[in-house]
């Protein structure tokens, strides 16, 4: 069964450093998403991506964040200068269209020290 994969599973970084979280969406999906979940809290939408551009983003997704689909398979989330409050689980998701089930990856736990 096809699945979304994410790497790394756990990333530890120093405050102010840049991190890149990687995702491989399901191959025939066209819509891609990043969400985050601070420990013990609900899942929060960050950004959606379609046709090589951002289709929607939340207030959380400020100038420190960027997304990219550098090739036909990867979808990345970059945080330019990490802050302590960026510590969270980051989930990538993909869907065949924007009105159907979003499939989630296992997440990357980001710890900012």
């Amino acid at each position, binding site marked *: 069964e096809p699945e979304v994969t994410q790497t790394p599973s756990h990333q530890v970084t120093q405050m102010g450093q840049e991190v890149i979280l990687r995702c491989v969406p399901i191959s025939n999906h066209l819509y891609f998403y990043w*969400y985050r979940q601070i420990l013990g809290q609900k899942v929060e*939408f960050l950004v*959606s991506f379609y046709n090589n551009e951002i289709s*929607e983003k939340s207030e959380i997704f400020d100038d420190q964040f960027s997304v990219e689909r550098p090739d036909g398979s990867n979808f990345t989330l970059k945080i330019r200068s990490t802050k302590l409050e960026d510590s969270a689980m980051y989930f990538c998701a993909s869907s065949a269209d924007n009105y159907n*089930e979003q499939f*989630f990856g296992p997440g990357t736990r980001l710890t900012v020290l």
Partner: protein
Amino acid sequence: GESVGLHLPTLSVQEGDNSIINCAYSNSASDYFIWYKQESGKGPQFIIDIRSNMDKRQGQRVTVLLNKTVKHLSLQIAATQPGDSAVYFCAENSDSNYQLIWGAGTKLIIKP
């Protein structure tokens, strides 16, 4: 603002009993609703979805009910098993946006 919320943060049920997890939403424009299950340390896993033109949908051991009049969504799990222990999230979106708006989550505990 738009929000989706859950009535109960924790629900304990006896193994074999049925459980009902509730969710309220405030955006009347929402027309697609999903229940996700999240086990500890894992990503959300799709359980079942329902569109606003329906008021009930059944899956394997799960049923989702939608009451648009009171903006209420529920997930019924029949004959609960230990593997059902998880946090359950409701989420919604509409045709006009891409993001899923998530509820706070209900932790389901199955007692042996």
